[in-house]
Protein backbone atom coordinates (compact mmCIF):
# COMPACT_ATOMS: atom_id res chain seq x y z
CA UNK A 1 0.00 0.00 0.00
CA UNK A 2 2.11 2.87 1.20
CA UNK A 3 5.15 1.71 -0.61
CA UNK A 4 6.54 5.18 -0.92
CA UNK A 5 7.33 5.15 2.76
CA UNK A 6 9.22 1.95 2.34
CA UNK A 7 11.04 3.22 -0.68
CA UNK A 8 12.59 5.88 1.49
CA UNK A 9 14.47 3.18 3.24
CA UNK A 10 15.89 1.72 0.08
CA UNK A 11 19.35 0.25 0.59
CA UNK A 12 19.14 0.60 4.35
CA UNK A 13 19.30 -2.46 6.49
CA UNK A 14 16.14 -3.55 8.21
CA UNK A 15 17.06 -2.15 11.57
CA UNK A 16 17.71 1.25 10.13
CA UNK A 17 14.27 1.11 8.64
CA UNK A 18 12.73 0.25 12.00
CA UNK A 19 14.70 2.92 13.79
CA UNK A 20 13.66 5.46 11.26
CA UNK A 21 10.02 4.57 11.64
CA UNK A 22 10.28 4.74 15.41
CA UNK A 23 11.92 8.11 15.07
CA UNK A 24 9.10 9.33 12.84
CA UNK A 25 6.69 8.22 15.54
CA UNK A 26 8.01 10.73 18.05
CA UNK A 27 6.66 13.94 16.49
CA UNK A 28 3.27 12.31 16.02
CA UNK A 29 3.14 11.25 19.66
CA UNK A 30 4.24 14.70 20.72
CA UNK A 31 1.53 16.23 18.55
CA UNK A 32 -1.04 13.83 19.91
CA UNK A 33 -0.13 14.61 23.48
CA UNK A 34 -0.24 18.35 22.83
CA UNK A 35 -3.65 18.08 21.19
CA UNK A 36 -5.01 15.92 23.99
CA UNK A 37 -3.53 18.18 26.62
CA UNK A 38 -5.11 21.17 24.94
CA UNK A 39 -8.48 19.44 24.68
CA UNK A 40 -8.38 18.46 28.31
CA UNK A 41 -7.31 21.93 29.40
CA UNK A 42 -9.61 24.07 27.34
CA UNK A 43 -12.86 22.19 27.47
CA UNK A 44 -15.29 22.86 30.30
CA UNK A 45 -15.13 20.80 33.44
CA UNK A 46 -12.82 21.33 36.38
CA UNK A 47 -10.84 18.28 37.43
CA UNK A 48 -10.68 19.56 40.98
CA UNK A 49 -14.43 19.98 41.13
CA UNK A 50 -14.87 16.49 39.70
CA UNK A 51 -12.58 14.93 42.26
CA UNK A 52 -14.29 16.69 45.11
CA UNK A 53 -17.73 15.83 43.86
CA UNK A 54 -21.06 17.52 44.11
CA UNK A 55 -20.66 19.15 47.47
CA UNK A 56 -17.29 20.77 47.37
CA UNK A 57 -16.98 24.29 48.76
CA UNK A 58 -15.34 26.77 46.42
CA UNK A 59 -12.34 27.13 48.75
CA UNK A 60 -11.73 23.39 48.71
CA UNK A 61 -11.84 23.37 44.93
CA UNK A 62 -9.46 26.32 44.73
CA UNK A 63 -7.12 24.70 47.20
CA UNK A 64 -7.10 21.46 45.30
CA UNK A 65 -6.54 23.23 41.99
CA UNK A 66 -3.51 24.90 43.45
CA UNK A 67 -2.28 21.62 44.92
CA UNK A 68 -2.69 19.89 41.57
CA UNK A 69 -0.88 22.64 39.77
CA UNK A 70 -3.89 23.37 37.64
CA UNK A 71 -3.36 27.09 38.00
CA UNK A 72 0.00 26.97 36.28
CA UNK A 73 0.16 28.20 32.70
CA UNK A 74 -0.70 25.67 30.04
CA UNK A 75 2.82 25.54 28.65
CA UNK A 76 4.33 24.89 32.05
CA UNK A 77 1.98 22.03 32.72
CA UNK A 78 2.50 20.53 29.29
CA UNK A 79 6.26 20.81 29.55
CA UNK A 80 6.24 19.11 32.90
CA UNK A 81 4.10 16.31 31.50
CA UNK A 82 6.48 15.79 28.59
CA UNK A 83 9.47 16.00 30.88
CA UNK A 84 8.10 13.31 33.14
CA UNK A 85 6.83 11.19 30.29
CA UNK A 86 10.31 11.03 28.81
CA UNK A 87 11.53 9.43 32.01
CA UNK A 88 8.66 6.95 31.80
CA UNK A 89 6.56 8.67 34.43
CA UNK A 90 3.07 9.29 33.12
CA UNK A 91 1.96 10.67 36.44
CA UNK A 92 -0.85 9.61 38.71
CA UNK A 93 -4.52 9.51 37.96
CA UNK A 94 -6.45 12.45 39.35
CA UNK A 95 -9.34 10.28 40.36
CA UNK A 96 -7.77 7.07 41.62
CA UNK A 97 -4.32 8.26 42.61
CA UNK A 98 -2.79 5.29 40.83
CA UNK A 99 0.25 5.48 38.66
CA UNK A 100 -1.09 5.76 35.14
CA UNK A 101 1.62 3.62 33.65
CA UNK A 102 1.02 0.85 36.16
CA UNK A 103 -2.69 0.80 35.51
CA UNK A 104 -2.21 0.76 31.74
CA UNK A 105 0.27 -2.06 32.17
CA UNK A 106 -2.18 -4.06 34.25
CA UNK A 107 -5.09 -3.50 31.87
CA UNK A 108 -3.31 -3.71 28.55
CA UNK A 109 -3.03 -7.51 28.54
CA UNK A 110 -6.84 -7.67 28.72
CA UNK A 111 -7.16 -5.31 25.79
CA UNK A 112 -4.54 -7.19 23.87
CA UNK A 113 -6.25 -10.53 24.49
CA UNK A 114 -9.57 -9.18 23.35
CA UNK A 115 -8.21 -7.44 20.27
CA UNK A 116 -6.13 -10.44 19.25
CA UNK A 117 -8.97 -12.88 19.55
CA UNK A 118 -11.33 -10.41 17.86
CA UNK A 119 -8.99 -10.05 14.93
CA UNK A 120 -8.46 -13.80 14.76
CA UNK A 121 -12.19 -14.35 14.55
CA UNK A 122 -12.41 -11.66 11.91
CA UNK A 123 -9.66 -13.31 9.88
CA UNK A 124 -11.12 -16.78 10.23
CA UNK A 125 -14.44 -15.48 8.93
CA UNK A 126 -13.30 -12.71 6.64
CA UNK A 127 -10.52 -14.23 4.56
CA UNK A 128 -12.26 -17.45 3.47
CA UNK A 129 -15.55 -15.69 2.83
CA UNK A 130 -13.75 -13.00 0.86
CA UNK A 131 -11.98 -15.60 -1.26
CA UNK A 132 -15.10 -17.62 -1.92
CA UNK A 133 -16.95 -14.45 -2.74
CA UNK A 134 -14.28 -13.27 -5.15
CA UNK A 135 -13.90 -16.55 -6.98
CA UNK A 136 -17.64 -16.65 -7.55
CA UNK A 137 -18.22 -12.99 -8.20
CA UNK A 138 -21.87 -12.02 -8.63
CA UNK A 139 -23.03 -15.53 -7.81
CA UNK A 140 -25.59 -16.27 -5.14
CA UNK A 141 -22.81 -17.34 -2.78
CA UNK A 142 -21.04 -14.07 -3.37
CA UNK A 143 -24.12 -11.97 -2.74
CA UNK A 144 -25.31 -13.88 0.28
CA UNK A 145 -21.94 -14.11 1.97
CA UNK A 146 -21.35 -10.41 1.40
CA UNK A 147 -24.73 -9.60 2.90
CA UNK A 148 -24.03 -11.81 5.92
CA UNK A 149 -20.59 -10.29 6.31
CA UNK A 150 -22.01 -6.81 6.01
CA UNK A 151 -24.68 -7.51 8.60
CA UNK A 152 -21.86 -7.79 11.09
CA UNK A 153 -20.73 -4.28 10.38
CA UNK A 154 -24.27 -2.97 10.12
CA UNK A 155 -25.25 -3.73 13.68
CA UNK A 156 -24.36 -1.22 16.33
CA UNK A 157 -21.75 -2.99 18.41
CA UNK A 158 -23.44 -2.64 21.75
CA UNK A 159 -26.68 -4.00 20.37
CA UNK A 160 -24.97 -7.03 18.91
CA UNK A 161 -23.20 -7.49 22.24
CA UNK A 162 -26.44 -7.40 24.19
CA UNK A 163 -28.05 -9.85 21.78
CA UNK A 164 -25.14 -12.26 22.09
CA UNK A 165 -25.40 -12.09 25.86
CA UNK A 166 -29.12 -12.81 25.70
CA UNK A 167 -28.56 -15.80 23.46
CA UNK A 168 -25.38 -17.33 24.83
CA UNK A 169 -25.54 -16.37 28.50
CA UNK A 170 -29.20 -16.04 29.34
CA UNK A 171 -30.93 -18.50 27.04
CA UNK A 172 -28.25 -21.10 26.47
CA UNK A 173 -26.23 -20.47 29.58
CA UNK A 174 -23.04 -21.39 27.78
CA UNK A 175 -20.85 -18.42 28.40
CA UNK A 176 -20.40 -15.78 31.07
CA UNK A 177 -22.16 -12.51 30.40
CA UNK A 178 -19.20 -10.33 31.19
CA UNK A 179 -16.17 -9.63 33.27
CA UNK A 180 -12.86 -11.32 33.04
CA UNK A 181 -13.10 -14.53 34.98
CA UNK A 182 -11.47 -17.15 32.79
CA UNK A 183 -10.78 -17.35 29.12
CA UNK A 184 -14.32 -18.42 28.26
CA UNK A 185 -15.33 -14.90 29.17
CA UNK A 186 -13.37 -13.51 26.24
CA UNK A 187 -15.36 -15.36 23.60
CA UNK A 188 -18.46 -13.20 23.45
CA UNK A 189 -16.67 -9.86 23.51
CA UNK A 190 -14.24 -11.11 20.90
CA UNK A 191 -17.11 -12.29 18.74
CA UNK A 192 -18.79 -8.92 19.09
CA UNK A 193 -15.64 -7.13 18.07
CA UNK A 194 -14.71 -9.65 15.43
CA UNK A 195 -17.91 -9.53 13.42
CA UNK A 196 -17.46 -5.85 12.65
CA UNK A 197 -13.90 -6.35 11.52
CA UNK A 198 -14.82 -9.52 9.68
CA UNK A 199 -17.00 -7.56 7.31
CA UNK A 200 -14.19 -5.15 6.57
CA UNK A 201 -11.68 -7.94 6.07
CA UNK A 202 -14.13 -9.85 3.88
CA UNK A 203 -14.67 -6.84 1.70
CA UNK A 204 -10.98 -6.14 1.38
CA UNK A 205 -10.12 -9.78 0.68
CA UNK A 206 -12.80 -9.92 -1.95
CA UNK A 207 -11.76 -6.82 -3.84
CA UNK A 208 -8.06 -7.59 -3.52
CA UNK A 209 -8.66 -11.12 -4.71
CA UNK A 210 -10.79 -9.89 -7.59
CA UNK A 211 -7.97 -7.68 -8.66
CA UNK A 212 -5.32 -10.35 -8.33
CA UNK A 213 -7.21 -13.06 -10.19
CA UNK A 214 -7.33 -10.73 -13.16
CA UNK A 215 -3.58 -10.41 -13.19
CA UNK A 216 -1.48 -11.83 -16.00
CA UNK A 217 0.44 -14.14 -13.73
CA UNK A 218 -2.74 -15.86 -12.70
CA UNK A 219 -3.44 -16.43 -16.37
CA UNK A 220 0.11 -17.72 -16.69
CA UNK A 221 -0.50 -20.15 -13.87
CA UNK A 222 -3.68 -21.37 -15.49
CA UNK A 223 -1.88 -21.68 -18.81
CA UNK A 224 0.60 -23.92 -17.04
CA UNK A 225 -2.21 -26.30 -16.22
CA UNK A 226 -2.25 -25.47 -12.52
CA UNK A 227 -5.45 -26.67 -10.87
CA UNK A 228 -7.88 -23.90 -9.99
CA UNK A 229 -7.73 -24.34 -6.21
CA UNK A 230 -3.93 -24.23 -6.41
CA UNK A 231 -4.16 -21.12 -8.56
CA UNK A 232 -6.22 -19.46 -5.88
CA UNK A 233 -4.42 -20.73 -2.81
CA UNK A 234 -0.85 -20.74 -4.01
CA UNK A 235 -0.66 -18.06 -6.66
CA UNK A 236 -3.43 -15.60 -5.93
CA UNK A 237 -3.80 -15.64 -2.17
CA UNK A 238 -0.31 -14.61 -1.25
CA UNK A 239 -0.49 -11.64 -3.59
CA UNK A 240 -3.99 -10.72 -2.51
CA UNK A 241 -3.03 -10.83 1.15
CA UNK A 242 -0.84 -7.75 1.08
CA UNK A 243 -3.64 -5.14 1.18
CA UNK A 244 -5.63 -7.48 3.40
CA UNK A 245 -2.83 -7.51 5.92
CA UNK A 246 -2.85 -3.74 5.93
CA UNK A 247 -6.51 -3.80 6.79
CA UNK A 248 -5.99 -6.48 9.40
CA UNK A 249 -3.28 -4.34 10.92
CA UNK A 250 -5.51 -1.29 10.92
CA UNK A 251 -8.35 -3.27 12.43
CA UNK A 252 -6.11 -4.66 15.10
CA UNK A 253 -4.91 -1.19 15.95
CA UNK A 254 -8.46 0.05 15.94
CA UNK A 255 -9.64 -2.76 18.21
CA UNK A 256 -6.85 -2.01 20.65
CA UNK A 257 -8.30 1.41 21.32
CA UNK A 258 -11.75 1.42 19.88
CA UNK A 259 -13.41 -1.32 21.81
CA UNK A 260 -15.02 1.03 24.30
CA UNK A 261 -18.61 0.04 23.67
CA UNK A 262 -17.87 -3.66 23.72
CA UNK A 263 -15.78 -3.24 26.85
CA UNK A 264 -18.68 -1.46 28.48
CA UNK A 265 -21.29 -4.01 27.51
CA UNK A 266 -19.14 -6.85 28.78
CA UNK A 267 -17.60 -4.92 31.69
CA UNK A 268 -14.26 -5.81 30.17
CA UNK A 269 -11.42 -4.16 32.08
CA UNK A 270 -9.57 -2.80 29.07
CA UNK A 271 -7.61 0.31 28.26
CA UNK A 272 -10.33 1.75 26.01
CA UNK A 273 -12.83 1.82 28.83
CA UNK A 274 -10.21 3.25 31.12
CA UNK A 275 -9.63 6.05 28.65
CA UNK A 276 -13.29 6.93 28.27
CA UNK A 277 -13.88 6.89 32.01
CA UNK A 278 -10.88 9.14 32.40
CA UNK A 279 -12.10 11.53 29.72
CA UNK A 280 -15.36 11.88 31.54
CA UNK A 281 -13.60 12.39 34.85
CA UNK A 282 -11.34 15.01 33.31
CA UNK A 283 -8.54 12.82 34.51
CA UNK A 284 -5.92 14.41 32.29
CA UNK A 285 -2.94 12.22 33.24
CA UNK A 286 -4.88 9.04 32.56
CA UNK A 287 -6.31 10.37 29.31
CA UNK A 288 -2.90 11.45 28.12
CA UNK A 289 -1.33 8.20 29.17
CA UNK A 290 -3.90 6.00 27.52
CA UNK A 291 -4.15 8.02 24.33
CA UNK A 292 -0.42 8.25 23.86
CA UNK A 293 -0.03 4.60 24.71
CA UNK A 294 -2.74 3.54 22.30
CA UNK A 295 -1.41 5.80 19.56
CA UNK A 296 2.02 4.25 20.02
CA UNK A 297 0.56 0.75 20.02
CA UNK A 298 -1.35 1.58 16.86
CA UNK A 299 1.78 2.81 15.13
CA UNK A 300 3.77 -0.18 16.27
CA UNK A 301 1.14 -2.50 14.88
CA UNK A 302 1.43 -0.70 11.56
CA UNK A 303 5.18 -1.01 11.68
CA UNK A 304 4.84 -4.70 12.37
CA UNK A 305 2.54 -4.96 9.38
CA UNK A 306 5.09 -3.24 7.18
CA UNK A 307 7.75 -5.65 8.33
CA UNK A 308 5.40 -8.53 7.73
CA UNK A 309 4.99 -7.39 4.13
CA UNK A 310 8.61 -8.17 3.65
CA UNK A 311 8.00 -11.80 4.40
CA UNK A 312 5.16 -11.99 1.96
CA UNK A 313 6.33 -9.79 -0.83
CA UNK A 314 9.98 -10.20 -1.85
CA UNK A 315 9.82 -6.93 -3.77
CA UNK A 316 9.33 -5.08 -0.53
CA UNK A 317 11.78 -7.13 1.44
CA UNK A 318 14.54 -6.21 -0.94
CA UNK A 319 13.89 -2.60 -0.12
CA UNK A 320 14.69 -3.13 3.53
CA UNK A 321 18.10 -4.49 2.78
Amino acid sequence: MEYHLLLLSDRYPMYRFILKRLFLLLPVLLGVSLLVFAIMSFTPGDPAQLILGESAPAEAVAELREEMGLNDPFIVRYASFVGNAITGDLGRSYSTGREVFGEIASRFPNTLTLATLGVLIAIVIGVPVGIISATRQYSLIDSSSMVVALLGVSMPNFWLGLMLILVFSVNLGWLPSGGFSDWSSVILPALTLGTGSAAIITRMTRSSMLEVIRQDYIRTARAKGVAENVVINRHALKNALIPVITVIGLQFGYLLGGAVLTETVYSWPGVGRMMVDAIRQKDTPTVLGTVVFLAAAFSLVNLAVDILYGFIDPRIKSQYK
Partner: protein
Amino acid sequence: MSQQITADTLPEAVLEATRSAPKKRSQWLEVWQHLKRNKMAMFGLVILSLVVFAAVFADLIADYETVVIAQNLSDRLQGPSAQYWMGTDEFGRDIFARMIHGTRVSLMVGVLSVAIAIMIGGTLGAVAGYYGGRLDNIIMRVMDIFLAVPSILLAIAIVSALGANLINLMLAIAVSSIPSYARVVRASVLSLRDQEFIEAARAIGASDTRIIFRHIVPNALAPVIVQGALGVATAILSTAGLSFIGLGIQPPEPEWGAMLAGGRQYLRHAWHVTTFPGLAIMITILALNLLGDGLRDALDPRLKH
Protein backbone atom coordinates in the same frame (compact mmCIF):
# COMPACT_ATOMS: atom_id res chain seq x y z
CA MET B 1 -0.84 0.86 -31.52
CA SER B 2 0.05 -1.27 -28.57
CA GLN B 3 1.38 0.89 -25.77
CA GLN B 4 -1.91 1.18 -23.98
CA ILE B 5 -2.43 -2.50 -23.65
CA THR B 6 0.59 -3.34 -21.55
CA ALA B 7 -0.90 -2.07 -18.34
CA ASP B 8 -4.28 -3.57 -18.82
CA THR B 9 -5.26 -6.96 -17.69
CA LEU B 10 -8.39 -7.64 -19.63
CA PRO B 11 -8.72 -8.98 -23.12
CA GLU B 12 -8.40 -6.30 -25.72
CA ALA B 13 -11.94 -6.49 -26.98
CA VAL B 14 -13.30 -5.73 -23.56
CA LEU B 15 -11.09 -2.77 -23.11
CA GLU B 16 -12.05 -1.56 -26.48
CA ALA B 17 -15.68 -1.81 -25.51
CA THR B 18 -15.29 0.18 -22.36
CA ARG B 19 -13.06 2.70 -23.96
CA SER B 20 -15.35 3.57 -26.77
CA ALA B 21 -18.43 3.78 -24.61
CA PRO B 22 -18.01 7.28 -23.12
CA LYS B 23 -18.32 8.73 -26.55
CA LYS B 24 -21.95 7.97 -26.43
CA ARG B 25 -22.78 8.52 -22.79
CA SER B 26 -21.59 10.74 -20.02
CA GLN B 27 -19.37 9.18 -17.41
CA TRP B 28 -22.04 9.29 -14.71
CA LEU B 29 -24.61 7.81 -16.96
CA GLU B 30 -22.25 4.97 -17.56
CA VAL B 31 -21.69 4.49 -13.86
CA TRP B 32 -25.43 4.43 -13.45
CA GLN B 33 -25.78 1.87 -16.22
CA HIS B 34 -23.25 -0.29 -14.48
CA LEU B 35 -24.81 0.19 -11.10
CA LYS B 36 -28.21 -0.64 -12.46
CA ARG B 37 -27.06 -4.14 -13.26
CA ASN B 38 -25.70 -4.74 -9.77
CA LYS B 39 -28.67 -6.28 -8.00
CA MET B 40 -27.23 -5.82 -4.55
CA ALA B 41 -26.50 -2.16 -5.14
CA MET B 42 -29.97 -1.61 -6.52
CA PHE B 43 -31.44 -3.31 -3.48
CA GLY B 44 -29.47 -0.84 -1.40
CA LEU B 45 -30.68 2.04 -3.49
CA VAL B 46 -34.30 1.00 -3.17
CA ILE B 47 -33.99 0.77 0.62
CA LEU B 48 -32.34 4.14 0.78
CA SER B 49 -35.02 5.66 -1.43
CA LEU B 50 -37.64 4.39 1.01
CA VAL B 51 -35.70 5.88 3.88
CA VAL B 52 -35.40 9.23 2.13
CA PHE B 53 -39.06 9.07 1.24
CA ALA B 54 -39.93 8.52 4.89
CA ALA B 55 -37.73 11.42 5.87
CA VAL B 56 -39.26 13.79 3.34
CA PHE B 57 -42.86 12.93 4.09
CA ALA B 58 -42.47 12.31 7.81
CA ASP B 59 -44.77 15.19 8.71
CA LEU B 60 -47.54 13.80 6.57
CA ILE B 61 -47.24 10.41 8.21
CA ALA B 62 -47.16 11.59 11.81
CA ASP B 63 -47.41 15.02 13.38
CA TYR B 64 -44.38 16.00 15.43
CA GLU B 65 -46.02 17.89 18.27
CA THR B 66 -49.07 15.74 18.82
CA VAL B 67 -47.72 12.28 18.04
CA VAL B 68 -43.96 12.05 17.90
CA ILE B 69 -43.10 13.75 21.16
CA ALA B 70 -46.49 13.48 22.82
CA GLN B 71 -46.26 11.40 25.97
CA ASN B 72 -49.02 9.09 26.95
CA LEU B 73 -47.89 7.68 30.24
CA SER B 74 -50.83 5.32 30.57
CA ASP B 75 -49.76 3.50 27.40
CA ARG B 76 -46.18 2.86 28.36
CA LEU B 77 -44.19 0.05 26.73
CA GLN B 78 -47.14 -1.37 24.84
CA GLY B 79 -46.42 -4.01 22.26
CA PRO B 80 -47.22 -3.50 18.59
CA SER B 81 -50.93 -3.19 17.91
CA ALA B 82 -53.30 -1.70 15.38
CA GLN B 83 -53.05 1.62 17.15
CA TYR B 84 -49.29 1.56 17.66
CA TRP B 85 -47.77 -0.34 14.78
CA MET B 86 -44.43 -0.69 16.46
CA GLY B 87 -45.64 -0.36 20.01
CA THR B 88 -44.84 2.45 22.42
CA ASP B 89 -41.76 3.48 24.35
CA GLU B 90 -41.24 4.16 28.02
CA PHE B 91 -43.23 7.40 27.77
CA GLY B 92 -46.04 5.84 25.77
CA ARG B 93 -44.88 7.55 22.60
CA ASP B 94 -45.67 5.93 19.27
CA ILE B 95 -42.48 4.18 18.16
CA PHE B 96 -43.59 4.01 14.55
CA ALA B 97 -44.04 7.77 14.40
CA ARG B 98 -40.69 8.26 16.10
CA MET B 99 -39.03 5.86 13.70
CA ILE B 100 -40.36 7.80 10.72
CA HIS B 101 -39.24 11.12 12.14
CA GLY B 102 -36.04 9.56 13.37
CA THR B 103 -35.19 8.88 9.75
CA ARG B 104 -34.79 12.59 9.28
CA VAL B 105 -32.40 13.09 12.10
CA SER B 106 -30.40 9.94 11.42
CA LEU B 107 -30.05 10.75 7.76
CA MET B 108 -29.28 14.36 8.45
CA VAL B 109 -26.60 13.47 10.96
CA GLY B 110 -25.19 10.87 8.60
CA VAL B 111 -25.21 12.94 5.45
CA LEU B 112 -24.30 16.31 6.88
CA SER B 113 -21.50 15.03 9.06
CA VAL B 114 -20.02 13.33 6.03
CA ALA B 115 -20.52 16.49 4.00
CA ILE B 116 -18.73 18.54 6.62
CA ALA B 117 -15.91 16.03 6.76
CA ILE B 118 -15.62 15.94 2.98
CA MET B 119 -15.57 19.70 2.72
CA ILE B 120 -12.90 20.19 5.34
CA GLY B 121 -10.95 17.00 4.74
CA GLY B 122 -11.29 17.26 0.98
CA THR B 123 -10.04 20.81 0.89
CA LEU B 124 -7.10 20.01 3.12
CA GLY B 125 -6.28 16.92 1.08
CA ALA B 126 -6.58 18.78 -2.21
CA VAL B 127 -4.36 21.60 -1.01
CA ALA B 128 -1.83 19.17 0.41
CA GLY B 129 -1.75 17.08 -2.71
CA TYR B 130 -1.75 19.98 -5.14
CA TYR B 131 0.92 22.14 -3.56
CA GLY B 132 2.94 19.30 -2.11
CA GLY B 133 6.20 19.95 -0.30
CA ARG B 134 6.22 21.54 3.09
CA LEU B 135 2.55 22.40 3.18
CA ASP B 136 1.66 18.84 2.30
CA ASN B 137 3.92 17.58 5.02
CA ILE B 138 2.45 19.84 7.67
CA ILE B 139 -1.15 19.15 6.75
CA MET B 140 -0.70 15.42 6.59
CA ARG B 141 1.23 15.23 9.86
CA VAL B 142 -1.55 17.15 11.56
CA MET B 143 -4.00 14.72 10.01
CA ASP B 144 -1.92 11.84 11.39
CA ILE B 145 -2.21 13.35 14.81
CA PHE B 146 -5.97 13.70 14.50
CA LEU B 147 -6.14 10.13 13.32
CA ALA B 148 -4.23 8.95 16.36
CA VAL B 149 -6.51 10.76 18.80
CA PRO B 150 -9.49 8.53 19.58
CA SER B 151 -12.63 9.80 17.92
CA ILE B 152 -14.52 9.41 21.14
CA LEU B 153 -12.25 11.93 22.84
CA LEU B 154 -12.73 14.40 20.02
CA ALA B 155 -16.46 13.86 20.19
CA ILE B 156 -16.66 14.33 23.95
CA ALA B 157 -14.43 17.38 23.69
CA ILE B 158 -16.64 19.03 21.10
CA VAL B 159 -19.88 18.15 22.80
CA SER B 160 -18.71 19.28 26.21
CA ALA B 161 -17.11 22.45 24.89
CA LEU B 162 -19.85 23.51 22.53
CA GLY B 163 -22.88 21.80 24.05
CA ALA B 164 -24.90 18.84 22.96
CA ASN B 165 -27.06 19.67 20.01
CA LEU B 166 -27.60 18.35 16.54
CA ILE B 167 -25.02 20.58 14.90
CA ASN B 168 -22.31 19.85 17.42
CA LEU B 169 -23.08 16.18 17.23
CA MET B 170 -22.57 16.27 13.47
CA LEU B 171 -19.41 18.26 13.96
CA ALA B 172 -18.15 15.78 16.52
CA ILE B 173 -18.70 12.89 14.15
CA ALA B 174 -17.29 14.81 11.20
CA VAL B 175 -14.05 15.79 12.92
CA SER B 176 -12.85 12.27 13.39
CA SER B 177 -13.35 11.35 9.75
CA ILE B 178 -11.68 14.45 8.32
CA PRO B 179 -8.26 12.79 8.12
CA SER B 180 -9.49 9.87 6.08
CA TYR B 181 -11.10 12.13 3.47
CA ALA B 182 -8.00 14.25 3.40
CA ARG B 183 -5.99 11.13 2.64
CA VAL B 184 -8.30 9.90 -0.08
CA VAL B 185 -8.49 13.25 -1.83
CA ARG B 186 -4.79 13.84 -1.51
CA ALA B 187 -4.05 10.49 -3.10
CA SER B 188 -6.29 11.20 -6.08
CA VAL B 189 -4.96 14.71 -6.45
CA LEU B 190 -1.41 13.41 -6.41
CA SER B 191 -2.23 11.04 -9.23
CA LEU B 192 -4.01 13.74 -11.20
CA ARG B 193 -1.69 16.62 -10.55
CA ASP B 194 0.87 15.81 -13.18
CA GLN B 195 -1.51 14.62 -15.83
CA GLU B 196 -1.59 16.39 -19.12
CA PHE B 197 -4.95 18.03 -18.89
CA ILE B 198 -3.85 19.76 -15.74
CA GLU B 199 -0.66 20.89 -17.47
CA ALA B 200 -2.83 22.12 -20.29
CA ALA B 201 -5.05 24.07 -17.95
CA ARG B 202 -2.00 25.58 -16.33
CA ALA B 203 -0.58 26.43 -19.72
CA ILE B 204 -3.60 28.51 -20.62
CA GLY B 205 -3.15 30.43 -17.40
CA ALA B 206 -5.87 28.99 -15.17
CA SER B 207 -5.52 29.95 -11.54
CA ASP B 208 -4.69 27.34 -8.89
CA THR B 209 -8.15 27.66 -7.39
CA ARG B 210 -9.70 27.12 -10.77
CA ILE B 211 -7.51 24.15 -11.49
CA ILE B 212 -8.28 22.57 -8.13
CA PHE B 213 -12.00 23.13 -8.20
CA ARG B 214 -12.74 22.86 -11.91
CA HIS B 215 -10.30 20.23 -12.97
CA ILE B 216 -8.98 18.22 -10.08
CA VAL B 217 -11.89 17.99 -7.68
CA PRO B 218 -14.40 16.62 -10.21
CA ASN B 219 -11.90 13.99 -11.24
CA ALA B 220 -11.06 13.04 -7.69
CA LEU B 221 -14.70 12.72 -6.79
CA ALA B 222 -15.19 9.03 -7.45
CA PRO B 223 -13.27 7.62 -4.48
CA VAL B 224 -14.71 10.31 -2.25
CA ILE B 225 -18.24 9.33 -3.21
CA VAL B 226 -17.57 5.70 -2.40
CA GLN B 227 -15.96 6.61 0.89
CA GLY B 228 -18.80 9.01 1.57
CA ALA B 229 -21.50 6.38 1.12
CA LEU B 230 -19.71 4.15 3.60
CA GLY B 231 -19.04 7.19 5.77
CA VAL B 232 -22.75 7.91 6.14
CA ALA B 233 -23.14 4.38 7.46
CA THR B 234 -20.31 4.86 9.91
CA ALA B 235 -21.73 8.19 11.03
CA ILE B 236 -25.11 6.64 11.81
CA LEU B 237 -23.35 3.95 13.83
CA SER B 238 -21.23 6.53 15.61
CA THR B 239 -24.35 8.45 16.58
CA ALA B 240 -25.72 5.29 18.13
CA GLY B 241 -22.42 4.73 19.91
CA LEU B 242 -22.39 8.26 21.27
CA SER B 243 -25.96 7.82 22.45
CA PHE B 244 -24.83 4.68 24.23
CA ILE B 245 -22.31 6.62 26.26
CA GLY B 246 -24.89 9.34 26.79
CA LEU B 247 -23.81 11.93 24.25
CA GLY B 248 -26.44 11.56 21.62
CA ILE B 249 -29.12 13.74 20.27
CA GLN B 250 -31.11 16.09 22.50
CA PRO B 251 -34.30 14.56 23.78
CA PRO B 252 -37.14 14.37 22.94
CA GLU B 253 -35.95 14.53 19.32
CA PRO B 254 -36.30 11.03 17.91
CA GLU B 255 -33.15 9.49 16.47
CA TRP B 256 -32.59 5.82 15.76
CA GLY B 257 -29.32 5.49 17.62
CA ALA B 258 -30.69 7.26 20.66
CA MET B 259 -33.85 5.15 20.56
CA LEU B 260 -31.76 1.99 20.40
CA ALA B 261 -29.33 3.01 23.10
CA GLY B 262 -32.04 4.47 25.31
CA GLY B 263 -34.22 1.40 25.03
CA ARG B 264 -31.53 -1.11 25.84
CA GLN B 265 -32.69 -1.62 29.42
CA TYR B 266 -36.08 -2.73 28.05
CA LEU B 267 -34.48 -5.25 25.73
CA ARG B 268 -35.74 -8.22 27.69
CA HIS B 269 -39.13 -6.89 28.68
CA ALA B 270 -40.35 -4.92 25.68
CA TRP B 271 -38.53 -6.29 22.67
CA HIS B 272 -40.11 -3.83 20.28
CA VAL B 273 -38.46 -0.79 21.85
CA THR B 274 -35.02 -1.65 20.55
CA THR B 275 -35.83 -4.08 17.76
CA PHE B 276 -37.34 -1.60 15.33
CA PRO B 277 -34.70 1.11 15.60
CA GLY B 278 -32.04 -1.59 15.59
CA LEU B 279 -33.39 -3.15 12.42
CA ALA B 280 -33.78 0.25 10.80
CA ILE B 281 -30.16 1.09 11.51
CA MET B 282 -29.03 -2.33 10.36
CA ILE B 283 -30.94 -2.29 7.10
CA THR B 284 -30.02 1.29 6.29
CA ILE B 285 -26.38 0.65 6.93
CA LEU B 286 -26.50 -2.55 4.97
CA ALA B 287 -28.09 -0.61 2.12
CA LEU B 288 -25.44 2.09 2.31
CA ASN B 289 -22.73 -0.52 2.29
CA LEU B 290 -24.22 -2.36 -0.65
CA LEU B 291 -24.60 0.88 -2.56
CA GLY B 292 -21.10 1.94 -1.60
CA ASP B 293 -19.65 -1.36 -2.75
CA GLY B 294 -21.68 -1.15 -5.92
CA LEU B 295 -20.44 2.37 -6.58
CA ARG B 296 -16.90 1.22 -5.98
CA ASP B 297 -17.31 -1.54 -8.53
CA ALA B 298 -18.99 0.82 -10.98
CA LEU B 299 -16.34 3.47 -10.60
CA ASP B 300 -13.37 1.18 -10.66
CA PRO B 301 -12.73 0.03 -14.22
CA ARG B 302 -10.46 -2.72 -12.99
CA LEU B 303 -13.28 -4.54 -11.27
CA LYS B 304 -15.60 -4.30 -14.23
CA HIS B 305 -16.11 -7.21 -16.48
